[in-house]
């Protein structure tokens, strides 16, 4: 018999049987995602908070699979159960139901609740990654180049090339930027990634938890050799890939050895930029008010008038010439007006990227004197 326009709107036994089947399959999918080793779809975890990212993935994969089983399951079931039988006239019609407010209410409410739940979960993990990491970590700076990375460590002059070593168990604050185009710093085993954007400092923070050597991969297109800025790529003709660079997680003792070796190797490396000098700057007669105006115009985009740690691009400059705890910028001694004038004149290849020199900033000798006078007033 052909069901027709007047047929009652009700769900039969077939519907509830397949619903039960989908529920069972969903539970199996959830069990699968929670019990299977994550290694089938993810690399090993070498740092905190990688575990939490994997947990979030498990949650999303499990709930996504369950949802998908229901959607596709019902599509297949309806396609089979409600297919037009052979010989059925084309003008026979289906159940004429337009909507069902109760059903629509529930299938709006349940996804909404799911979105709330997922938001709470994601925000908590986000908080652990972005905010709640220890603040007192080892500060390392990563610089992207076409097509390699260099690193800077506190206490090592110049740049570290090749492998990037980190001590096991010590929190790391990795600040990254680029010297040319946008690169990205990704270590799949650490689960974190930061784009290296010229003129901008991005930060990722993590704590290494597993000894080993982990490939660094660039995930932002950066030119011809982008594909080889990836330590998993072998080189041509059996040679090592020159673009292969690794994060090496060492025991603290081995890390110290490596660190001292670089300190010695780079003892005479310079942090100053080679620039054309504008002659000797006379600091006498600097006008702090003029310097203040100039600071707002030329410097405030990158430097805050706050503690050293208040970084915009460069460090905060409050107390730069007064506070002995203010880190030493140039040669290891407390900053003097002459040092500051020298940085202003010659620029500085600083912690992160570059501070432009007087030529790039358009500063005259008089301007430098005024700025130094102003910086002296910041206590």
């Amino acid at each position: 018999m052909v069901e027709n326009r007047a047929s009652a709107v009700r769900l039969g036994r077939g519907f509830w049987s397949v619903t039960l089947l989908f529920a069972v399959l969903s539970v199996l999918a959830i069990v699968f995602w929670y019990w299977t080793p994550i290694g089938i779809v993810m690399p090993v975890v070498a740092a905190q908070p990688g575990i939490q990212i994997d947990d979030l993935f498990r949650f999303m994969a499990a709930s996504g699979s369950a949802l998908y089983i229901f959607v596709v399951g019902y599509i297949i079931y309806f396609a089979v159960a409600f297919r037009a039988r052979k010989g059925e006239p084309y003008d026979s019609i289906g159940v004429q139901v337009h909507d069902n407010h109760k059903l629509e209410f529930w299938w709006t409410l349940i996804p909404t609740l799911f979105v709330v739940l997922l938001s709470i979960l994601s925000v908590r993990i986000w908080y652990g990654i972005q905010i709640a990491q220890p603040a007192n970590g080892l500060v390392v700076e990563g610089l992207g180049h076409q097509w390699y990375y260099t690193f800077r460590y506190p206490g090592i002059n110049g740049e570290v090339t090749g492998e990037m070593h980190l001590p096991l168990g010590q929190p790391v604050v990795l600040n990254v930027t680029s010297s040319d185009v946008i690169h990205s710093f990704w270590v799949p085993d650490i689960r974190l990634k930061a784009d290296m954007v010229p003129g901008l400092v991005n930060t990722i923070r993590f704590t290494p938890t597993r000894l080993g050597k982990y490939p660094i991969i660039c995930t932002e297109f950066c030119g011809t050799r982008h594909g080889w800025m990836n330590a998993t790529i072998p080189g041509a003709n059996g040679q090592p890939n020159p673009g292969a660079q690794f994060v090496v997680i060492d025991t603290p003792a081995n890390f110290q050895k490596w660190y001292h070796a670089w300190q010695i190797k780079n003892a005479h490396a310079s942090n100053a930029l080679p620039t054309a000098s504008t002659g000797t700057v006379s600091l006498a007669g600097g006008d702090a008010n003029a310097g203040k105006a100039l600071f707002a115009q030329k410097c405030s985009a990158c430097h805050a008038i706050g503690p050293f740690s208040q970084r915009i691009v460069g460090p905060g400059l409050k107390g730069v010439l007064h506070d002995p705890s203010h880190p030493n910028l140039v040669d290891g001694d407390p900053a003097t007006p002459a040092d500051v004038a020298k940085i202003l004149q010659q620029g500085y290849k600083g912690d992160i990227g570059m501070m432009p020199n007087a030529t790039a900033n358009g500063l005259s000798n008089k301007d430098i004197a005024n700025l130094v006078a102003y910086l002296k007033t910041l206590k």
Partner: protein
Amino acid sequence: MSTAAVSHGGGIADHIHPEPQGFIRRYVFSIDHKIIGIQYLITGFVFLVLAGLLAEVIRTQLLHANGGFVSADTYNEVYSVHGSAMVWLVIIPLITGGFGNVIMPLQIGARDVAFPWLNMLSFWIFPVAGLMLFSSFLMGAPVAGWTEYPPMSLQAGAGTSMWAAAIFLVGVSSTLTGINFVVTMFQMRAPGMTFTRMPLFCWAQLATAPLLMIATTALAAALAALFMERQFGVPFYDPTKGGSPIMWQHMFWFYSHPAVYIMILPAFGMISEIIPTFARKPIFGYKMIAFSSMAIALAGFMVWAHHMFTSGLAPYLQLPFMILTFTIAIPTGVKIFSWVATLWGGKIHFTTSMMFAVGFLALFTLGGITGIFLAAVPFDLHVHGTYFVVAHFHYVLVGGSLMGIFAGMYFYFPKMSGRLMSEKIGKWHFWLFFIGFNGTFLPQHWLGMLGMPRRVPTYDPQFTFWNQFSSISSYVMTFAILLFFINILVSLRNGKKAGPNPWGARTLEWQIPSPPHYYNFKHIPTVYGLPYDFSQPLPYKGLEEELTDTPVAVGAH
């Protein structure tokens, strides 16, 4: 009959111009929305072939871990033009300019769009821009992907400027189409065709048109700045001159995220027409589907920075973008559930069009779910810029938009040509495409999670198996698309005559001859209800003479 009293501008719409004579005015520089729509479809499909061949260059390169099919530089050009062409020369023109033009005015009972000459201009900009984009290969095509992030795009060869100019022009074309469609839908609906009686395809176009108008202008500004920086050294993006590369990303994604909805909403609209027609029952939750299109379009403007979680967004700024992106799942879910519910209790006829529509549901849902994964900042920090992202957006754009386009072609081809497409070739097309597509893109999810970055001509040798699996599947997919074109050509000559309404559909375009006359309707009909009540008589009056030989009074009111 008098319609002027109830019609918006019915007086204008009632006036019939004589049909232009001569090949050029009829088929080349036509102002007829149906011809323009078909011009969009033909041009878009030509670009689909070209961009599809580029895709096969990509997959052939990736057959081996160390590449070797083309050089790295050529490879970079190939995927950049592939992505740009697929977005701007294939999906957007096919789904807005193509189907929107052919179907929308017919569905609202209008004789043309509001600005037919503007429509002609919109179309003719598009092939010119397409030729410009492909000609960039002659001077060093863009290399930095379809997103062309500076400073990389500032370093690249001269073709990048050509790219910027070409995309700018396509943007002008899109903007004009958006304006045209909004005015048409506001001013030219037949009497009685209230917004709450409008077919869902028109609702989808109504949600899309503001995106075309508003978002595209942001892209135009960004492209103009890129062009000026490259050609005249005006520093917008170069950080060494005080520019900001991040500004490009914001401007680009402020367009390109809504563009995702430009590409998918009209497909939603076609699915909403096809599923009730072949299930022989009303669309479930008409109002919720219409409303959710608008909700998606509106929310689509507020989530762009989820493409930039690793770019250097202030951490707290990541939260609103993450959570707003999650919320888009709600209206999208409502749509999917409504379509599935429409299948329930139907008398489902599995024509090729319906198979593509149902296939769309399965594939788009998967792409939507992985979209939620990517919106979650912690997970995105791992998979951003990897093949996981590539897999996700191909599920949405190929499994979603392109499947929708195929469904729409099998559905509307009889209306456009008067002939049915071959169901036999169509079913081969569907199954090979469905299998080939999943084989190509499903493995890319885990390739990305395990560590394969995107936009690379070489990869870790341990990923060889799944890459070869993907490449070979992509050849199957390409073969399926070849069948589709063969089907079109064969059916144009030898297809069964369709008659006015081969599917028993109830929207207005099916109540007039196939192909429709130049003037569409002899008399503008009056509409009394929704088009989806299969148990009721058609809710139109004034269509009595449409299928008769009564001549139409040209120039009459």
